[in-house]
């Protein structure tokens, strides 16, 4: 635990040296929600009909913004491995008294704490500015969903960060992956109206599972049975990503 807290302390000190991180962590999600979301909401007009109820695009997109923020923060944090490598400190870290798993958990824990603030800000804007009706009874599972989401994506991306030595290659791979994962998911649009092939692909995408779960916990949209399977699926994705990331870290030198 001491080692994990030491990494959190280190991440906190580094974050203090660059306020730009705060912009990415806290402001970008709000911009997506308030600019992109509101713009599309106006364009779509009266909203979309889902599961027999009319849902505004702002309501629909709220979960997308949360899952997008998790993915974006995980990318930033995994990119930190390249910065640590350039500083030479990465290899020194691996000689510190901690397991490889503790190292990974520590690296993402500070970002998880930040994501709680990020989610609180996003939800506040959704409620007070966009007048979205939240399912308050699901607030705690929603926060847990955000924290678990950021950790799962970080472990998943860490696998690539450890296996790819060049940061330009990593950037390219992540940009392509982000593009495919985002648009083949339920982040921006409901899958009910999507072509069958896209729907099939999206159903196997962990980003769809994560977004659907967050959507259920924010506005109550979704079949509880399916959402339960998506929770299980995403949990397995988290565990598998963590396991492979630890194995990859052991071979990262």
């Amino acid at each position, binding site marked *: 635990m*001491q080692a994990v*807290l030491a990494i959190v*302390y280190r991440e906190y*000190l580094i974050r203090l040296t660059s306020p730009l991180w705060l912009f990415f962590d806290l402001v970008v999600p709000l911009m997506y929600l308030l600019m992109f979301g509101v713009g599309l909401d106006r364009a779509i007009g009266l909203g979309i009909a889902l599961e027999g109820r009319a849902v505004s695009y702002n309501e629909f997109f709220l979960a997308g913004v949360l899952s997008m923020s998790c993915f974006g923060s995980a990318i930033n944090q995994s990119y930190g491995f390249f910065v640590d490598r350039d*500083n030479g400190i990465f*290899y020194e870290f691996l*000689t510190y*008294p*901690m*397991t490889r798993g503790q190292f990974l958990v520590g690296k993402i824990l500070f970002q998880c704490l930040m994501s709680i603030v990020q989610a609180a800000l996003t939800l506040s804007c959704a409620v007070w500015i966009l007048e979205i009706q939240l399912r308050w009874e699901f607030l705690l599972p929603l926060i847990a969903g955000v924290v678990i989401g950021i950790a799962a994506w970080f472990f998943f991306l860490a696998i690539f960060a450890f296996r790819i030595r060049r940061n330009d290659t990593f950037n390219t791979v992540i940009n392509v992956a982000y593009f495919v994962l985002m648009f083949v998911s339920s982040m921006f649009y409901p899958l009910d109206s999507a072509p069958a092939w896209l729907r099939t692909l999206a159903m196997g995408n962990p980003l769809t599972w994560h977004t659907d779960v967050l959507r259920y916990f924010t506005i109550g949209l979704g079949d509880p049975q399916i959402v339960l399977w998506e929770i299980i699926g995403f949990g397995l994705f988290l565990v598998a990503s963590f396991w492979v990331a630890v194995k990859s870290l052991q071979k990262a030198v």
Partner: protein
Amino acid sequence: MSHPAIEVKDLVKFYEKRGQPLVRAVQGVSFSVRKGEIFGLLGPNGAGKTTTLKILTTLLLPTSGSVRVMGFDVATHSLDVRKNICVVVQDNAIELYLSVRNNFRTFGRFHGLTTGEVEQRMGRISELFGLQEHLNAKGVDLSGGLKRRVQVAKMFLIDKPIVFLDEATTGMDTFNKRSTIAAIKEEARKGRTVVLTTHLLDEAEELCDSLAIINHGRVIASGSTDQVKAMGLKMMYVWLDFKKIGKKTVQSIAKWKPVKLETKGTSIELTVRDDKAALAIVAAARKTGLLRNFEIVNATLEDVFVELVDKKQEAA
């Protein structure tokens, strides 16, 4: 009987990359390091010393063989090993965007020190390494030598029983090199075991109680520093100063086949394999009638190192 600080038996490390030939970095290396000893791992570039050090510090897993650090196997008890070591890696390793003070603070926290303990020790360490005026400077603003100093100084902030130093004094000026060497000696005197790799053989000679010379992934000599020097077949260093040096003078000396021969102005420096050759060379030099001065001393570790590495390469 207590176990040695480090015990390496038949260590083998092969690297295999798809489409590339197998790299045999370490091929059956064995040595042991007693507690409180300063041990040097020497060898030319690519000899396998950094790979060996990476295995000792749990960064790499061995292909085969046994490596125990403070009694713990590096492959099966890597966390226990890491709890007993601190490491200066070969590359500069410093938090570039944190101040030197915060570099010390984070490092201390990783190794279980409280903020109070770090602050208390930081004063002594920054004085020892001449870092007092740089405590508030960010890593990114430090020169290469200062970065290295911070990296080495961190190791003396904590009390781990084994310190690994991979080319620790690289990039330091003479003054800081002296204080670092003094600090390493002081830590060893307190009972800490120090394992270092260096290409500066005079540094190794001054610091090390014992050493191993590695070449092509194999130990070609090991033992106490004096024992290894003795393996150099009683090599001698000869310095000759002439009124003037002609071709004939050099040729007459070269026929004794010295290990190393260098002409500097009116003097010749050479290393020969034994004292008989040294005396014969001086006698031959006197016959020229041009010899002004001479000196014969025991060869340095560097001379022995070159001789041993050359011999093995010839054999290979």
